């Protein structure tokens, strides 16, 4: 199996576990190393623990420079892995599935499915 396929399968596995509710994520403020700076902005971070490792997932905006004084904002998504002491972070390579993972995490963490179920139940309830 190539390195690319291994990464794909690993992230897809995380996605599947998240969608099934096996892997629970929590919302967190950005860690100190991600605290808002002039060139990178992170609003919300999602964190979970898997196999004794900490995983953090977040979307960010960063300044992309085309010249010394010319720049524009670009969006990115990062999935990173660390030891329990959060000493150093390793970033997964850019991958399309990470975007789907972020969508799934938001959907499950914010509780969109239970909210919709409750709305439907409320609508079906007789007055």
């Amino acid at each position, binding site marked *: 199996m190539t390195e*690319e*396929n291994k990464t*794909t399968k690993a992230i*897809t596995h995380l*996605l*599947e576990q998240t*969608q099934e509710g096996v892997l629970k994520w929590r919302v967190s403020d950005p860690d100190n190393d991600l605290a808002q700076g002039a060139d990178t902005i992170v609003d919300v971070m999602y964190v979970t623990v898997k196999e004794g490792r900490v995983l953090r997932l977040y979307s960010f905006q960063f300044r992309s420079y085309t010249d010394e004084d010319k720049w524009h904002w670009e969006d990115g998504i990062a999935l990173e892995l660390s030891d329990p002491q959060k000493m150093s972070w390793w970033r997964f390579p850019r991958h*399309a*599935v990470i*975007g*789907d993972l972020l*969508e*799934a995490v938001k*959907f*499950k963490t914010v509780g*969109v*499915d239970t909210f*919709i179920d409750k709305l439907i139940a409320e609508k079906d309830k007789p007055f």
Partner: protein
Amino acid sequence: MNATLSQIGDICSVLGFFFTLLVLMKLRGIHRSFLAQARLPDLQKKIRGHRSALSKLLNDFSAAGSDIEAEIQKCHANLQNLQPKLGHAQAANVKTIVAFTAQLTRSPTSPDKEQVRKLYLALVLLEEDLDNLSEDMKWRARE
């Protein structure tokens, strides 16, 4: 002497036949590559859209209902469109996925979660394949 000239003529016409075949094959390749260059970016975008839509539907599979079948049908149509525009290796890969989507759309029962996951993973791997192919095409165009 006459017999020898006629033999040379025979050999040349046989060689000419094979040369024509070779030119036809090359022309077909150029035609396919031209078509792929023109249509691949749009079809890649569509495949990306199907992959993302399937993932969103998997977030709440029980509520997805007929949306899943509709998405698979659209995906099937776009994969069928993509297949003839690719070279042998990639086309064989797409053919396998097309056979799977055909099986899912023809089935009288709705696809189950595992089948949708299988299709999702196949689309992810296909996307990687197509990304590599479009990079290769960019380099070939520069040569």
